[in-house]
């Protein structure tokens, strides 16, 4: 489990995150949602430690990240996998070598054959066809790149998985495939997953535990089912901004009343 307590973060004197406290549960897809510029990416990068926090605690199973030494942070990072918005695959390396990279770097006790077997397992787990293994990232589709990034993220059996807008730039069907994959992997490997998104389909599909950020404040917390009954104005304005989702809410509430 990851827990954030009274987190504050500012840039050049301007506070971007104000006193955020939240829990992210193991084996669940935890989502940080909010408008662009609300501070959700800063929150995620602060939790990972890419941005040092001003005040507050970031507890990885009771280990406080801001108190850790560089060596401990380095060790902790090996328990972390991350899927970046643009996949962030190493474009000078083939698909299989991208997945092999963390294994070659850190799983030095494994033989080369075992490392390769693990990389192949991860790529097959994300349903990537074998024909794509020796291609370069630029030669495969955006959806495939995201799957390779997930495979790379899980290569070292992480305890924590971070996904920064995993559906950005994907068509709805591929986005759904990626969402399901994240959810399945989270449950299968009992990972604490944090997904940063503003994709409503994704929220409705896999949002087991949701934290809504508005202007750097935690404005709401709950499950996707709670969203329909929430009277939080900011949340309603964000989630039900489109006509489609307004109608969905009306129909859900009408059914509930019935």
């Amino acid at each position: 489990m990851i827990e954030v307590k009274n987190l504050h973060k500012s840039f050049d004197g301007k506070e971007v995150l104000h006193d955020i406290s939240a829990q992210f549960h193991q084996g669940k897809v935890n989502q940080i949602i909010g408008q662009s510029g609300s501070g959700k990416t800063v929150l995620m990068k602060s939790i990972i430690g890419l941005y040092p926090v001003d005040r507050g605690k970031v507890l990885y199973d009771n280990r406080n990240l801001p108190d850790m030494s560089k060596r401990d942070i380095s060790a902790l990072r090996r328990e972390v996998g991350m899927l970046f918005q643009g996949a962030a695959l190493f474009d000078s390396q083939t698909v299989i070598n991208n997945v092999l990279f963390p294994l070659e770097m850190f799983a030095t006790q494994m033989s080369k054959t075992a490392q390769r077997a693990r990389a192949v397992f991860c790529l097959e787990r994300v349903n990537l066809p074998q024909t794509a293994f020796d291609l370069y990232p630029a030669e495969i589709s955006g959806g495939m790149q995201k799957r390779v990034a997930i495979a790379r993220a899980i290569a070292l059996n992480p305890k924590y998985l971070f996904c920064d807008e995993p559906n950005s730039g994907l068509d709805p069907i591929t986005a759904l495939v990626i969402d399901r994959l994240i959810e399945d992997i989270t449950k299968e490997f009992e990972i604490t997953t944090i997904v940063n998104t503003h994709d409503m389909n994704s929220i409705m599909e896999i949002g087991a535990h949701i934290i809504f950020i508005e202007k750097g404040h935690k404005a709401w917390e709950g499950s996707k089912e709670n969203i329909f009954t929430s009277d939080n104005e900011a949340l309603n304005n964000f989630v039900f901004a489109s006509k489609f989702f307004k109608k969905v809410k009306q129909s859900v509430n009408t059914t509930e009343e019935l």
Partner: protein
Amino acid sequence: MITAAIKQTGRYVELMGKTFSKPDNWKMFWRQLPKEMEKLGVNSIGIIVLISVFIGAIMTMQTILNTENPMLPRYSTGLVLRDTLLLEFSSSIMSLLLAGKVGSNIASEIGTMRITEQIDALDVMGINSANYLILPKIIGLVLFMPALVIFSVFCGMFGGVGIAYFTDLITMSDFLYGIQYAFIPFYLTYSLIKSLFFGFIIASISAFYGYYAFGGALDVGRASTNAVVNSSVLILLINIILTKLLLT
């Protein structure tokens, strides 16, 4: 402006501190090093050969045409060419050319990795990204620079030999006598020492601008330009200092 310069210097020193630390995995470092030597050094041989041969030939012709004086011995052309190549051209001018070719390559490669979050991906994995990406480039270029300098000196002389062979401006024996006459071995040492410094400047300054690139494609282009301009200026500055220290 002074504050900004101090701040930049501080960031550069900090980055070099991160770069010159123990690699997370020595095996990966040794695997990267020859790749970088090939990319930055071996792949620059073509341009070095082309420029050195032509400049050597042109310098030979210019020296002959502009020193038509009975007081000057005929072999002086070879001597002038050799010492010019050794003292300045093959180390300093070649380094300025490499700052353009290699420097922009390093800055744009690392800059693109920065804006596409590939460096963040390395950091999240717990890898010292500066050490993993920059150290093999610096070591690779610094190790290969002396080879490029020696190569350039020989290619420049070969250009001069070409003029002696294909034209009647100077005889081959006069030219060859000149390039062997009053040779001071320290000039070669001086040239090689300079090349080590210049190799470090090109690789580290370009990596610095690439590593701290921020934004999009335009910013990578800007980082690349800054890398070339600043490493060139620094090469000229260090050239004066080293000349003063080593030759006076």
